[in-house]
Structure formats: structure tokens, C-alpha cells
């Protein structure tokens, strides 16, 4: 039994019609607003059942990508397919199959919690009861307030209601645009617990966030900046791709150390990371002793250094700099 199941799955995954098995396929997508290129030749694929993260700051192009995929925005060029349907030709099919939670709270403020949920169930031709299992865990937390108007809910409650409304028609793909922005550490961690539970119910989830520490909770992530995707992979592979030895150093006066290191010719990069600064050296054979030698020049008090594993944020910063350098090179080549 297990073997057959496995075979079927494998066949499906690696079958001829590959795009059929992807929940989302975006190919060479471009979206411009006037001269501004919001989405700059973006391609990626999300597998069914995957928890996929779009990681990047405001203005990276995340929301435009979401709006293209949820058929709310037309791309200038490129193709986008969701659950086997083209976003332009078959937008109606897609709208029935996806749930979308926009970054901005978009429920009806004057309707109660219950009324909002009923409204969304009805327009999708279903009932709350029919798909109650799916939202139960989340809805239970806001049930005590079911007669309260949505506009009067707290931030965390609004977020939970919005998620319930996006789930009520049992979508195959769930799009969540920055669900945790501006939310404190505790609520953020609770929200991700909910997402991981939803994933167990085989829903494909595409989620965006500006918080790099949330990236590691995704199966795969795309790092986005200036409308471009800098890297798409599993978080652990993205971390592995960091090409240099990374050091974490600290001293009593961390800010002075940072300033000193910035001027040092042997140091390639140094960035503040909480109580530490993260450093890479220009030289390929870097070790802790070498960093200590360099530090000696500046007489830092209580200097400590160790080799560490890079975080997603380290990688993001590095890729951003590479992108910027490339941009500058292009400008030089183009004679600007």
C-alpha cells in the first residue's frame, strides 16, 4: 500500500506535465508602474502542499506578485498559472480555488465576526459548517467575540478572523501577504504555529514577510529585493550557499569596533547583529586568530570572536550588496 502510494506520488511529481503538479508557476513576470519596475522578470514555482515564503522588505515587489497570482492585477508580460489555470484566461476558476489575505485589513468593519465569516462563506457558495474543521482551531480563539464588529477587534483578533475568512471556502492555495508585520514576537510565533497546522491539512501556502527570522519556518523561500528574486531554495541551502567563513565578534564598545573594522582593508564586510558584529574577511583562508590580530590594532576591550553559521539575514545582506554592485557596474558600462 505504502509503496503504491509512493509510486503514484513520484509519478505525479515528476510526470511529464510538470506545471500541472505545481500549485503556482510564475514565469518571466514583469510589472511596471510608469517607469518603476515593481516586478522585474520574476520566475518561481511552488509545489503542492508546500509552505513557500517570499522574503523581502517593503517595496521589494511582494504584494504585486501576490496580486498577479490572485488575478487582481495584470502583469505587463510573462505567464502565471495557479492550480493549472492561467491567471488571465481562467481567472474565475482561480478565484474559487485560492484564499487571499491582503496585507491591509480588508474585512467589513461594520459587520460582526460571525457576519463576516457568513458573508465570505456565502459568496463562495458554501457554509461555515461545511468547512468548519479547517478553521476550528483558529475560530475557537475568536468565537467569544462572534457578535463584536470586526472594526472593534484587536490587531491579533482581526488577523485571525481574516485568516478564517480566507479559509472558509477550503482553498487549495492560500496567499498571505505580510500577515505578521507590526506584530509582536509572541503573536508572530502563534501565527506561524497556525500556518504549520494548516500545512498538515495539505493546503499550499504562499506567505510573504519582511522578518528574516521567519524564513527558516518555510519549506522553501524566495529572497526578493527591488523587484527581483535574488535566490530561491530551501532555507538550509540558502544558508549553505554563503561563500565565506562568517565570524561573530563583540567588544565592550561595539559601535567603536564596528567603525574601526569598517575602515580596515582586510575586512570585507561587517554588520551589526544584535550584541555581535558579523564579519567576513577578504582573504579566503580566514580564521579566528587572524580576526584577533586585526582587532589588536584597535585595542578593543573584552574582544571576543567565534565562527558562526550564517543566518538568512546574513545571506540577504550579501546578495543585496552583490545586486547593488552589479547595478553600479552596469551603470559604468552604460556610461552613466
Amino acid at each position, binding site marked *: 500500500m505504502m509503496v503504491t502510494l509512493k509510486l503514484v506520488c513520484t509519478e505525479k511529481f515528476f510526470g511529464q506535465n510538470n506545471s500541472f503538479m505545481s500549485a503556482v508557476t510564475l514565469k518571466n513576470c514583469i510589472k511596471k508602474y510608469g517607469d518603476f519596475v515593481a516586478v522585474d522578470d520574476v520566475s518561481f514555482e511552488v509545489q503542492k502542499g508546500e509552505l513557500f515564503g517570499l522574503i523581502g522588505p*517593503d517595496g521589494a515587489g511582494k504584494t504585486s506578485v501576490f496580486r498577479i497570482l490572485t488575478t487582481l492585477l495584470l502583469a505587463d508580460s510573462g505567464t502565471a498559472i495557479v492550480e493549472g489555470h492561467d491567471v488571465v484566461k481562467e481567472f474565475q476558476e482561480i478565484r474559487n480555488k485560492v484564499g487571499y489575505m491582503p496585507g491591509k485589513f480588508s474585512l467589513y468593519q461594520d459587520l460582526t465576526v460571525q457576519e463576516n465569516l457568513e458573508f465570505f462563506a456565502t459568496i463562495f457558495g458554501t457554509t461555515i459548517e461545511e468547512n468548519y474543521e479547517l478553521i476550528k482551531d483558529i475560530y475557537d480563539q475568536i468565537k467569544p467575540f462572534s457578535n463584536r464588529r470586526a472594526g472593534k477587534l484587536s*490587531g491579533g483578533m482581526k488577523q485571525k478572523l481574516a485568516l478564517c475568512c480566507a479559509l472558509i471556502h477550503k482553498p487549495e492555495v492560500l496567499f498571505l501577504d505580510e500577515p505578521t508585520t507590526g506584530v509582536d514576537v509572541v503573536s508572530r510565533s502563534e501565527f506561524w504555529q497556525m500556518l504549520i497546522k494548516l500545512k498538515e491539512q495539505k493546503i499550499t501556502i504562499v506567505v510573504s514577510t519582511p522578518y528574516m527570522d521567519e524564513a527558516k519556518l518555510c519549506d522553501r523561500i524566495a529572497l526578493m529585493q527591488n523587484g527581483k528574486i535574488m535566490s530561491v531554495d530551501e532555507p538550509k541551502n540558502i544558508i549553505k550557499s554563503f561563500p565565506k567563513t562568517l565570524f561573530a565578534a563583540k567588544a565592550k564598545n561595539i559601535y567603536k569596533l564596528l567603525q574601526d573594522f569598517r575602515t580596515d582593508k582586510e575586512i570585507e564586510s561587517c*554588520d*551589526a547583529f*544584535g*550584541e555581535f558584529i558579523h564579519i567576513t574577511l577578504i582573504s579566503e583562508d580566514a580564521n579566528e586568530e587572524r580576526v584577533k590580530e586585526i582587532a589588536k590594532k584597535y585595542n578593543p576591550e573584552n574582544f571576543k570572536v567565534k565562527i558562526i553559521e550564517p543566518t538568512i539575514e546574513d545571506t540577504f545582506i550579501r546578495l*543585496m550588496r552583490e545586486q547593488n554592485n552589479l547595478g553600479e557596474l552596469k551603470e559604468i558600462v552604460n556610461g552613466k
Partner: protein
Amino acid sequence: MENKAIVCKELTKQFGDFKAVDKISFEVSEGEIFGFLGANGAGKTTAMRILCGLSYPTSGEASVAGFDVYKQQEKIKKNIGYMSQKFSLYDNLTILENIEFYGGVYGVSRPEIKERSTELVKMLGLEKEAKKLVGGLPLGWKQKLAFSVAVFHRPKIVFLDEPTGGVDPITRRQFWDMIYEAAASGITVFVTTHYMDEAEYCNRISIMVDGRVEAIDSPAELKKRFNTTSMDEVFYELARNAQRAAD
């Protein structure tokens, strides 16, 4: 004795039965970078509004830059700067117009505004954009400009309400460089953030839960007390039992 930029004693703000701020007491020294953290709905914004002279407390005492929050609100406003991610600059004014407007509001003289705005624009590397509308600037530049504008009149204290939300990781760090510079020049910095790595950049932080200040110390001491290596965990330990979750 060390001068205090902010002093709060049992400061309380009540809306009906609801104690948004519940007897908070703390002091911030001049030139300090003070992180004001808390769960959503803990009462940070309410407390900050009182300290900025925008709202009266129900009871307790507080002074900001030596001025009383009950009787000297206007003097407080003149001596502080404020910036938040949500409200900072006017998109429909140019960079220079924004500086001129804020400088004027805070009573900086015209010749001084003229001289120093040119300086500022140069320092930020925005000479080419100086006469362009702020609305068209990338977010990172806007944030840096907003901060510079908030300290343009050389206030004693600057209040920063989640200044780096949504900003890319490089700009976020450049922003903190500016905070350090401001602090080094003697400006007291009072900052809120949801990034726990940024909490580490503060000299001291306080963590608010359900209207009360539950902890206040240097990041290193707090981590020691909670026997952990990350500020995330300190925050989590303190805030996970929060009853309130309003915004």
C-alpha cells in the same frame, strides 16, 4: 548627579475602567538610547503619547526634558523630536520643502534652515533629489530623511515609534548608525521596535506587558536574568502570559 531626560513615577492612564498604562516608573538618562518594548496592546503608544505632550495622564508624575507632562506640554513639544513609520514626511512636498516646513514649525530661523538644509541634503547624498517630491523616494531613503528631519531642530529627546518597520536589512543598520550618531551628540533616543536584534543596540530597554513595565535593564543583564542568550526569549518569557492583545 546624572541628568535625567525622562522621569516617570507611577504614571497611569485610564480609559473608563481600562488601565492602558498602569503605574509605570522609570528614568532615562541624557544621551541614552532607551528601547521601549512591549507586546501589542501593552500600552506603549499611550505612554508615548503622554511623554510627547499629546495626552494627559490620569495619575502619577512624569517629566520630559525637565518639563512637567501636566503643565508644560507645549514646552515638551518644543524640546522633542518625533518620527514613526506611519507618520513622518509629507509625500506631496519636496525634500527641501519638508525640511523647511518642519524646521519652521519648530522655530528654527530662516537663514539657519537654509544653511543647514543644504548641509543635510549633502550629508544624506540626496543633492540630486532635493527638489523632488518625497513620495517618489524609496522607503529606506524616506526613513533616513524622516529621522534627520526629526532631529533637525536639535531636540533634547527624539521619540522613534517603530522607525525601521519593513525596511531592508542594510538600510535598517544604516538607520541605527544615525541613531548612534545622534546619541553621541547628546540627543536622548527613545525607541520602540519589534526587531529583537535592535533591542540589543539599546543601552537599556524596558518591556511592557498589560500596562505595566515588567522588566527594565541592559540587554545583557536581562539575558543573564532569564538565563538565555537571545532577547527573543526574554521577550517571549515576559509577554507570553499577556492578557491583552489590543493594538
